[in-house]
């Protein structure tokens, strides 16, 4: 009977553990294992290769560029997202008529699938009829539709900023909402005290709002780092990482490799995994450092 009691938690929690083990833990192990295997295109395991997959991966001529681009991609998207969201949270925290409706509008990019949003942007950037290019023609930024200047996604130097734009576009809603929730937890008497001390608007924001917003900011940024690093549909739908690999991040590269060499692709995944952990640790260090300074 006592032994049965000891098993009781397992009956309640067990299924969850099994599901996590099956769907989350197992793939991680399988991924690491595969990165040391030689696997044929059809999925047949040909045997162990000490670290050949990694050697091959690091030897790819585009590898260094892709890794650098991935880091820039994450940093650019997350920083822009946070800055834009801080401003938007401040704005949407004010009182104005129909605030609720305006806030709801922000939900759309968050709820809609990122893939759909990316596809819409690809269409809006269409060189011949895309509405963004129509606007650019009207503003005199480009001479005419259809030319090379209108083909924004065809060249890495113009495609990359658009990819970043779309990634920021879909990340801002969640971040803004998280910051709005953070703003709501700041007690109003703190602001009254600041006012009595004669602190100005900017000063109040800088030394009261921002520090108190830090927990919300940290979590939002952390979730964004994970999401953006693993962001796949935007680049996949809009450029496929092309031309060449010039708009590919490591996640895209991993997926492209999957079609030719699963072992090498697994090695790329493991490197990706490591990168996410490193970026997260760096971020946590930096934000803690900020706290100590403040």
């Amino acid at each position, binding site marked *: 009977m006592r032994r049965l009691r000891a098993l009781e*938690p397992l009956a309640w929690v067990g299924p*969850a553990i099994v599901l996590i083990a099956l769907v989350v833990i197992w793939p991680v192990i399988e991924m690491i294992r595969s990165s040391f295997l030689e696997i044929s295109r059809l999925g047949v395991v040909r045997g162990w290769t000490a670290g050949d997959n990694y050697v091959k991966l690091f030897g790819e001529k585009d590898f260094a560029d892709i890794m650098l681009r991935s880091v820039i991609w994450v940093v650019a998207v997350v920083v822009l997202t946070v800055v834009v969201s801080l401003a938007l949270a401040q704005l949407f925290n004010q009182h*104005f008529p129909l605030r609720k409706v305006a806030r709801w509008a922000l939900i759309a990019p968050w709820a809609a699938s990122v893939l759909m949003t990316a596809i819409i942007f690809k*269409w809006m950037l269409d060189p011949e*009829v895309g509405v963004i290019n129509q606007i650019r023609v009207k503003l005199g930024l480009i001479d005419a539709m259809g030319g090379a200047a209108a083909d924004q996604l065809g060249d890495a130097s113009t495609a990359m900023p658009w990819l970043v734009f779309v990634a920021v576009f879909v990340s801002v809603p969640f971040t803004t909402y*998280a910051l709005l929730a953070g703003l709501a937890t700041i007690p109003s008497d703190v602001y009254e005290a600041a006012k009595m001390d004669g602190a100005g608007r900017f000063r109040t924001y800088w030394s009261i709002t921002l520090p108190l917003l830090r927990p919300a900011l940290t979590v939002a940024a952390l979730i964004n780092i994970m999401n953006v690093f693993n962001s796949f549909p935007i680049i996949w739908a809009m450029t496929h990482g092309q031309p060449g690999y010039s708009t590919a991040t490591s996640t895209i590269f991993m997926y492209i490799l999957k079609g030719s060499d699963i072992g090498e692709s697994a090695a790329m995944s493991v490197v990706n995994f490591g990168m996410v952990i490193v970026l997260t640790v760096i971020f946590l260090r930096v934000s803690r450092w900020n706290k100590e300074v403040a």
Partner: protein
Amino acid sequence: MAVDTAPARTGSRPQARPGRGATRRLPKLKTVVIAASAYVIAFLFLFPYLVMVLTSLRSQESLRDVSFWPDEWVWSNFTDFWSSGLAGNLWVTIKVAAGATVLVLLVALPAAYYSARHRFRGRTAFLILVLITQMFQPTAMVVGIYREFYQFGLVDSTWSLILVNGGFNLAFAVWILNAYFSSIPRELEEAAFIDGNGRFGALFRITLPLAMPGVITALIFTFIAAWNEFVVALTLTTSSENKPLPVALNSFIGQYQVDWQNLFAGSVIATIPVIILFALIERKVVSGLTAGSIK
């Protein structure tokens, strides 16, 4: 949630107060500027989806016209959707989203309830495991997922998509449900238990109804996430009739001539329902995702 807005209110009150008596009907200039910029931004965030809807109502011929509004409104793109193979893909999406939601409900509910009510050995380890899982993304391990399901012989099966989507959304559900169950006083349940309801009677009559907002949030969140999921579905489905709608729609793009009007009719069907569903739970999702850090 009404307290949410307290800081802003106190922030703007001093400016608003003096003029209130005299210019009651006229809003202050500051409010007008704030409202106007908020509306513009709101519009910008809706704009792509407006373009999506407008394009889905264009005719094939007017697709390449340079005009923002369609010359004529063509509803046949939507009726075409139902007669094309895409209706089958929509059905796959519905099965995956509903299946994952039911799976999460069955697995997360007991785990969250028990870990909220009882201290047992391994409880902390379990909750940490859940927290770590929430940080994991299927995209990062899609190769491992593919290899695993390849070995199971479950590639190109709706079941594998249900399993993966259920597994990756479990963490959020356990987390938010655990918070809900913890907030319900144990005494309420015990009182019902003493009244002769039995342990399960108390659970089903008292605790579960009180936790309903959390349950609904977890369910809608899982449903939307599974509905929108792309990478795993792209990887694990091979035949066109087994592809969920997003994957099927994406395969339009590779074609030489993209029938954007049909593509966007499908997108509208894939997008609008989840935006509405999401609007219902948006606040709870934020507190769920950032739980523990903001409070």
